[in-house]
């Protein structure tokens, strides 16, 4: 057991994936010699060579499109998209090709591709470096979408994603890359496509993922001081969503707050709200509350603190669930 950052945990997981299967490749902009702009692939090209850790030309459609061909040839590419807002030049290849080739070929052409995307705000960046585009991918049949929130999950989830025969869009909370926690490399990994209860509590359920998990954990501490016990669930898998633990929790608490950074309209919290209403209608003591980014383009960095769900907005929503 050792304390590592989330970024280092990903690095260790990627290293393990490269060691375990010679067909695994890493490809993207600056992933080789530099080790990635966040150093997530640090040292991997040195140890596994330029043919397996590939510095690509600067074109996202090219990264994804060539990964499709490599996958057809039996490779298992891990593509790095440098920042969330830069995934869109590759969007066509992801949505029309990566997501559909298994289906189009009736299972003859599997697409074991992982697309890593650092996502979310809070780092004071310029435009296009702080977005949360997970909904686009969760809306696309044929893709699976996950988001890690802590070093242990980062380490295991990236390996599980690489070994999956389905294409997986893998979101990494970039503003948590440097946060440390214990990493147990011997532990049995938690299933990839399962939500996880991080904290038990009987009064109100809070569901979130990615960078907002820590925000909500802090909010849960604060809520306790106000006399509300929060049950905090990390969704982890955004497609498919594993809502069984959420239903079970809401059946006990009667209250649900969903928190995410992406803009609200037609977001994943809308889907969660609809499903929880279908499944838990008679248990609900209050309407499902949402704490999200606003329906605006990601704002300039000096304004982002207002855009991002923070402890106070989460607490306000928690409190509001007791007003019905």
């Amino acid at each position: 057991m050792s304390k590592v950052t989330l970024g280092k945990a990903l690095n260790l997981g990627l290293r393990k994936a490269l060691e375990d299967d010679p067909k695994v490749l890493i490809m993207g902009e600056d992933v080789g010699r530099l080790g990635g702009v966040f150093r997530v692939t640090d040292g991997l090209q040195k140890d596994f060579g330029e043919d397996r850790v590939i510095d690509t030309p600067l074109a996202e459609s090219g990264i994804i499109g060539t990964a499709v061909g490599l996958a057809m040839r039996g490779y298992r590419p891990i593509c790095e998209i440098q920042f969330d807002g830069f995934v869109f030049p590759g969007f066509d290849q992801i949505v029309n090709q990566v997501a559909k080739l298994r289906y189009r070929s009736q299972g003859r052409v599997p697409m074991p591709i992982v697309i890593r995307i650092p996502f979310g705000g809070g780092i004071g960046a310029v435009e296009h470096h702080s977005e949360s585009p997970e909904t686009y991918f969760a809306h696309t049949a044929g893709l699976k979408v996950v988001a890690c929130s802590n070093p242990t999950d980062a380490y295991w989830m990236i390996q599980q994603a690489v070994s999956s025969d389905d294409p997986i869009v893998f979101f990494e909370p970039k503003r948590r890359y440097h946060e440390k926690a214990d990493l147990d490399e011997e532990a049995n990994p938690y299933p990839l496509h399962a939500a996880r209860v991080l904290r038990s509590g009987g009064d109100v359920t809070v569901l979130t993922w990615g960078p907002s998990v820590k925000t909500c954990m802090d909010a849960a501490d604060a809520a306790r001081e106000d006399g509300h016990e929060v049950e905090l669930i990390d969704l982890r898998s955004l497609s498919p969503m594993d809502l069984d633990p959420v239903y079970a929790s809401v059946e006990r608490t009667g209250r649900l707050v969903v928190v995410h950074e992406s803009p609200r309209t037609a977001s994943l919290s809308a889907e969660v709200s609809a499903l929880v209403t279908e499944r838990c209608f008679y248990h609900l003591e209050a309407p499902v509350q949402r704490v999200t980014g606003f329906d605006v383009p990601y704002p300039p960095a000096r304004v982002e603190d207002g855009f991002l769900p923070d402890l106070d907005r989460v607490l306000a929503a928690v409190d509001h669930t007791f007003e019905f």
Partner: protein
Amino acid sequence: MTVDSMASTRPRGDCVQLLTPEGERVTHPGYEDVDFSPEQVRGFYRDFVLVRRIDTEGTALQRQGELGIWASLLGQEAAQVGSGRALEPGDFVFPTYREHGVAWCRGIDPVNLLGLFRGVDHGAWDPAEMNFGLYTIVIGAQSLHATGYAMGMQRDGAEDAVLAYFGDGASAQGDVNEAFIWAGVFNAPIVFFCQNNQWAISVPLARQTRAPLYQRAQGFGFPGVQVDGNDVFAVHEVTKRALRGAREGNGPTLIEAVTYRMGPHTTTDDPTRYRIASEVEEWRLKDPIERVRVYLARNGLADQAFFDSVDEEANDLAASIRKRCIELPDPGPMRMFQQVYAEPSPTLERERAEYEEYLAGFEGSHA
């Protein structure tokens, strides 16, 4: 509007041609030693007639309501058969949706092509078994897949090459140009085969490119060759050399096969709205099949019995694929849920189960 849409298609000094539209065998600098056996030429002719017959049947089946749509290859037989017959077994093809002639050369059952346009599936052949990718509808997307596949061959140490098809319209797509960049910088074993058929639905070549397409390769750092796409000899030889170069580690080549889409873009299209009849007639005189037929007859390489037997074979093939196409079973509604994922998604499984239950509710309610 002053750019002539035919600017890059007129015969040029550097456009490789080995058989004229009149069936005259000619030579080209660097191609003096090229030779084709009578058997090989008869083989090309047979391929042409059968492929054109498949195509005619596709259009007919669409007109009769048996296909949703058909994309005709009429006029492009030499470009497709010439390049398709240049492949070695280990090579891999990435087609667009119009490569029926290449599919034929790779041994794809024509009924599988008809099935796709009928709407029973998205392509029922196994790409890994046939070394022929699935038809790709998004224009130019397959050029990147082809390049990635070639990079995989490179990593495997295979002595094979990829042949990637696209058209003049696709040459404007970002993906095609990114594929050129990738293939160039990684020296991938790939041949880009552009069938310049002059029209992207209604938009002429002049709106896709200012420079002749084959010249574009130079800017990406690899050779580009322009070839008379209606001349099977030239197409075959140019493609064979490019594939050999790729296999030997010399990297990519761009081939621009200058040809013409004699029919509509697809059966939904009406080309009389955007091009003049005289242009079509001009190209009819350059028909790829007729010149091989003249060459065979004039040189005594085939007699009437041969031509008759090919026609008979075409008739039999047409009848067979028509029958088998019409008999293709409808897949049934539950088919849509299959193979979305390798590992089942509980969300999708629930939707599937709900729909199945819904359908079961109708059982026995209608005679």
